[in-house]
């Protein structure tokens, strides 16, 4: 892996402008994704990970607003892209895989058209070339090219997700953002898809931003993981360390809430309370009301994301006094 990160996110802040006030969905998030790396973004529902993903892909929808921060991809300022440059960025450099493949595919047009239209939108070439490429992508994900002209509802859930992956790959992007790609699938199919993604990643060398709330899955699949809580990154480290030696109280509590597959039965511990309202973020640490190890300063001063001794980052007063 070369030293220059592929994607650099600095102080990203995303707000939602509502008639009752401003909801801060993402609060000062910073992380890097290296070339060929699988970076995971973990956290509970509503913590802002999807919002980060959409911001990176320039898909932030009104009333959402990227109110601060910088996103750099391969040296380009993503948030300033317009017109033709934005078109080039879309799908060519960064593509997206959604959670529900059934909803991600247009139900009334054949699947072939859905993969051909993106090829034709970006690459001037004749129809034969585009079609050949589509067939190639289908074979890559293990779907028979004969089915190219079928409609989305004629495929099973797993196959549909594979079609979405094929579409995501067809322009050979450098980064693929996957927002909960396997959450809607059953466990067996999940395994299939993850294996397939891994294989393709090794073959083509693209980076992945992998978003899920399934920490276990993420630890297996990702190289590095960032844990988000209430719109902030609370810990970033490589997967192994997050699993064996989590540092932030939230990460530790998350780990404790997963039942172990083997070994003696342990008492499951949930995390009491609920995340703070994004309309009114607290002055101190966001996790403080639910933290078992909170100290006085936690309620009054927000913590900063600082580098730790093992190379990771963490946002906690206990770790960064």
């Amino acid at each position, binding site marked *: 892996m070369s030293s220059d990160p592929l994607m650099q996110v600095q102080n990203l802040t995303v707000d939602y402008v509502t008639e009752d006030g401003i909801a801060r969905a993402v609060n000062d998030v910073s992380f890097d994704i290296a070339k060929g790396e699988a970076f995971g973004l973990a956290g509970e529902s509503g913590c802002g990970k999807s919002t980060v993903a959409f911001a990176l892909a320039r898909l932030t929808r009104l009333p959402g607003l990227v109110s601060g921060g910088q996103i750099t991809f391969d040296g380009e300022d993503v948030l300033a892209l317009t017109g033709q440059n934005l078109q080039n960025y879309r799908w060519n450099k960064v593509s997206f895989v*959604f959670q*529900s493949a059934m909803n991600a595919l*247009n139900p009334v047009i*054949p699947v072939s058209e859905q993969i051909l239209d993106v090829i034709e939108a970006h690459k001037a070439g004749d129809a034969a070339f585009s079609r050949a490429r589509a067939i190639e992508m289908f074979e890559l994900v293990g779907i028979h090219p004969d089915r190219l002209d079928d409609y989305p509802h004629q495929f099973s859930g797993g196959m549909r997700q594979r079609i979405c992956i094929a579409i995501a790959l067809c322009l050979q992007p450098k980064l693929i953002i996957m927002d909960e790609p396997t959450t809607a699938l059953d466990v067996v199919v999940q395994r299939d898809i993850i294996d397939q993604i891994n294989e393709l990643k090794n073959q083509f060398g693209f980076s992945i931003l992998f978003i899920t709330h399934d920490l276990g899955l993420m630890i297996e699949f990702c190289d590095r993981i960032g844990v988000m809580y209430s719109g902030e990154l609370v810990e970033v480290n490589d997967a192994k360390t997050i699993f064996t030696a989590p540092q932030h109280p939230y990460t530790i509590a998350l780990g404790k809430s997963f039942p172990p597959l083997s070994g003696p039965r342990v008492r499951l511990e949930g995390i009491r309370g609920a995340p703070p309202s994004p309309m009114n973020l607290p002055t101190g640490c966001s996790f403080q009301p639910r933290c078992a190890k909170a100290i006085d300063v936690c309620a009054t001063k927000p913590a900063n994301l600082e580098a730790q001794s093992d190379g990771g980052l963490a946002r906690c007063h206990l770790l960064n006094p």
Partner: protein
Amino acid sequence: MQFLLRRLGFYLGAFFVAITLNFFIPRWMPGDPTTRIILAMRGRLRPDQIDAIKESYGYGGTLWEQYWIYIVKLTQFDFGISTTNFPEPTSTLLFYSATWTLLLVGLATAIAFAMGISMGIYSAWNRGGFFDSLFTPINVMLNAFTPAVVALLLFYSLSLEWGIFPLGRAHALDVFPEWSFSFVINILYHATLPVLSIVIVTFGAWHLGMRNTMINLLDEDFVILAKAKGLSDRRIRYRYVARNAILPQVTSLAMSIGFVLGGAIITEIVFNYPGLGKFTLSAIQARDYSFIQAQLLLLTSTVLIANMVSDVLNLILDPRLRTGGQH
């Protein structure tokens, strides 16, 4: 195909309900049509003559016998003898006037649908812009005007006051009906205001329906994906959003025919247009029951056929209905 068969079953069922209603309503009401005639004769009829009259109007025999005869006659398109145009069979006048009404309804629906849908697409895409803020409420409010009022106003202003359009009828009296270009133009000229009345009152619904459906679709994953793919604005608008949004509109199209027919009937009366409306009105005044009942059956069948056409359209447009497939 199963889908179509099921729908056909429903239509036959609905038609059956209509026929039955048609049969029973007159028999529920106090008195029967024959009483009038008998009274008019001031009791100078012999019993067997009274029976004969009752028989010819379908009131002879027991209820079941009447019903059976009624059904049999229907299959032969025998709607009875018209009292207004005695002894012409009702069917002659019925089919003649129905043709004109269907011309109005057909033209009006096609124009209103095309107008409304295009405006709806534009409004949805430029949500909150000038066109949307101004025209969406206006068009929908037009929808809330009764066709009687609109027809009257148009008639008063454009036909009466300013004489731009004719005062009525389907075509000028001195023009011989034939399949010539000038005749067709003449027909269209006379049909303009009636069609306009109906269009004004109906296109708002299509506008709003299409706009709202499209706006709801904008949150769907596949639309966001289309945007993420970097597809042209045009392609997303038509091939992704509108193409999906039109499906429920096609379904409501069939349901709206019944309503449009009602509006057409009222409009015809204002414009003295020789359609079902005008003749039904005179039939009511003359108590021509066979005509009145016949028009219900004819219009019901028209609506059912329109529904069938809409189902076929749905089948063509929505691949999910065609092939069974997994979900």
